């Protein structure tokens, strides 16, 4: 739960005082990140920092060409913050916010600072899994695609293509989402939809019908 830590008393100008102290020189990076992180940066900044520091320590001992920077974009909201992923031998070892991005200017929130764990997370679904008699059973991709496909074709035969609802996703890239929409057209139904329905569908309809 979020709990308010201050007593609700104004403690003076926020940004300006942080910047004043910064120019006085007596501030380390950790403190700066904490202070410039608005209300949200504290632990997030610490998270970024620790992974960044680990990387730097390694970079001193390892050949400099062993760490590659790959540019990605955070997946947690629509601001589009650039994430710089530090990769060595195919392993994502650290991340930094993109300072060159005009959107995030080197900032991250708690979620953005933790995206490496989203990919490298140990709680991910690891292989195709099927529920059999109430127990999860590992199966192969071949078996999964064949069994699901056969069932879909059987449903199509008996109830028509509209008896299948298959979501699209706001988490997909443009290319994936487009391909999925096209896939549904070739399957033969409009029973597909994604998070915009429950997010900004009224905005899109309202704005499009007002502005044109």
């Amino acid at each position, binding site marked *: 739960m979020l709990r308010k830590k201050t007593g609700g008393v104004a403690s003076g100008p926020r940004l300006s005082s942080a910047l004043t102290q910064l120019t006085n020189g007596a501030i380390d990076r950790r403190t700066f990140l904490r202070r410039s992180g608005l209300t949200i940066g504290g632990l997030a900044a610490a998270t970024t920092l620790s992974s960044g520091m680990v990387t730097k320590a390694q970079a001193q001992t390892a050949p400099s060409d062993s760490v590659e920077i790959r540019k990605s974009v955070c997946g947690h909201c629509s601001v589009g913050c650039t994430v710089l*992923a530090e990769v060595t031998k195919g392993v994502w070892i650290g991340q930094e916010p993109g300072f060159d991005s005009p959107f995030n200017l080197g900032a*991250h929130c708690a979620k*953005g600072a933790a995206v490496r764990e989203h990919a490298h997370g140990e709680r991910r679904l690891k292989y195709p899994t099927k529920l059999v008699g109430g127990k999860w059973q590992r199966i192969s991709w071949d078996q999964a695609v064949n069994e699901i496909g056969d069932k879909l074709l059987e449903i199509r035969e008996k109830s028509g293509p509209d008896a299948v609802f298959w979501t699209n996703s706001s988490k997909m890239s443009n290319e994936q989402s487009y391909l999925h929409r096209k*896939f549904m057209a070739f*399957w033969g139904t409009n029973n597909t939809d994604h*998070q915009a329905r429950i997010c900004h569908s009224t905005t899109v309809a309202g704005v499009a019908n007002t502005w044109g």
Partner: protein
Amino acid sequence: MTYSYNDIHNSRAIFLIGGNPAEAHPVSLLHLLRAKEVNNAPFIVCDPRFTRTAAHADEYVRLRSGTDVALIWGILWHVFENGWEDKDFIRQRVWGMDQVKAEVAKWTPEEVERVTGVPGSQLKRVARTLANNRPFTIIWCMGGTQHHIGNNNVRAYCNLGLALGVIGTSGGGTNIFRGHDNVQGATDVGGGNDTLPGYYGLIEGAWKHWARVWGVEYDYILGRFATVKDKEGKDESMSTKAGMPVSRWIDGVLEAKENIDQPDNLRAMIYQGHAPNSQTRMTDMKEAMEKLDLLVVIDPYPTVSAILHDRTDGVYLLPAATQFETVGSVTASNRSLQWREKVMEPMFECKTDQEIIYLFAQKLGFADELFKNIAVNGTEPVVEDILREINRGMWTIGYTGQSPERLKLHMANQYTFDRTTLRAVGGPADGDYYGLPWPCWGTPEMKHPGTANLYDTSLPVADGGLCFRANFGVERDGQNLLAEDSWPVGSEIEDGYPEFTMAMLKELGWDGDLTAEERSAIEAVAGDKTNWKTDLSGGIQRVAIAHGCAPFGNAKARSVVWNFPDPVPLHREPLYSPRRDLVADYPTYEDRKFWRLPVLYKTIQDQDFSTDFPTILTSGRLVEYEGGGDETRSNPWLAELQQDMFVEINPYDANNKGIRDGEMVWIHSPEGGKVNVMALLTDRVGRGVAFMPFHFGGWYQGEDRRSRYPSGADPYVLGESVNTVTTYGYDSVTQMQETKTTLCRIEKA
């Protein structure tokens, strides 16, 4: 978003309603606070809850949840009363404002206070602040949209901007913050149930256009769809009928077959990249999941779909790769496209979504047709080829100029783009706006820079300028719908005009500018009837823009949307209203049927739940988690920060019930569900209001269902889903679900 987060640097005031970006879009606060600190822009936040965003506000307006239209009309009442509206702007670029004015006249300060709870004196101050600090930006999020009158709320906000003339001016605009990394893009490329990619709709012409782009016969596509008999016994293809919305799929399963407008009930549900606990009525959802023949989850995490039901068979979980394990473009809220590099190979046995789609297309027998223009390496489609196909087809909103090469160039040269205008200053992308925000007209070779601010007539169209689109004809009730005395700088037509067609080019004598290739491509589509959005050569767009014109015409914005249930936005009481005295004055709609399903309004509002369920329940986001929360609650860093599902209760209400901070309570829903959550006593919510975040799952009505997850794939943090106690209610145009205003009863556990 009509502009960008960055353009807010130019705002003289910020009007934010129904949004909490400090938690939902934290980095956006960089830009908002810059306007506040540097421009001294007054920051006005309207919300039933004193959010972390409201904590930054100069003026906080606490309205009763679900009364946005009344609040906006209450502000406009003062605007019109004092003659603060922008009369020139309205005359030139707005149609129907007189009808809005007539409705607004009914919303006196007294009536507004009776409905919204906000004093007239405060709204007069807000109105004066906005009038004196133009241009101001208008920002809204789910607090405005997720209501059964969501489309009315949104159009009321638009009218506030139109009346005060802040639309189409840098620093103004409606900057709608979207919630997911690619919810903008997925909507643009047709992820919804009611349109093909690019908002072409589902009419026959739209299908023919896309069949042309895909290189298949229209009849082939038609043959894939079911055909039904219409009322007169004639054959009708299901291809032109909007599908069911994801908010209602459960009714596609549970509703009696004779009540739904398709041949049979839904029998299979496939959730690909979508959490279930972000949808309302989870008690009904559990039943629907149990009734299905087949339930499939395709996701990097098992999601609540894996464990909500009591099924023992017929469920598959397929591991999808994350966005970091593939390449592709995503469209940020400001319509900029950014290209992601692949960070790492897919973990474990995960596959990318495009490969999964390929495998199923192959199994279902249409892979050759689906991938006709798209190369496939083994079973992995080439992502760049997919974007090139998008470029070849999405002329309507200008997704045609953003080639993979241009997007990659922007990502590699981010540092060359200005932080406020988003325009590259020198460097290889000189003059482009960052990420080529759509519309980026014409072919990639035409090098349109993208459009950072929509409808801004102070720039030439070739430079990112625009006007309002002529999408609704040229005349209504004998009045001119086209713009008057207003056009983008450099336009050779100095007046309003309709959308461009080949016939119009000929009339203007501009068709001579077309190349031979463009001319034959236009001829092949529909001759003189080919228009700017079906011309696959882009020639019509190119020539129109060369003459300074917007391909889509130059018209007025519509204050009144005559094709919607409420042409002028009206206040209507929530279906579960705590104010029975107001239900009589501001009733909801009659029940209707659309998008294949019956939609209840009056039937629900007629029942009085306000005595047994006296507390207003609303919901929202937390900074630590996102969406249904499965990914973020599985992330140890984030999970540690937010370990308990909770309900915010005003101390006054809690003390009256003897509830102490940190105690467990039951929240009961008028539709029968209940959740067991921890009480957080706070003045963030007013008296009689409770708030719960929506990211939790894994508990169901008091039962911890952790043991049902596949071993090792259970999120670190589980909790009750707020949507177990949310209720019926769908927007009258889009079937957006009502999550922001319902009723509940709080009891000590």
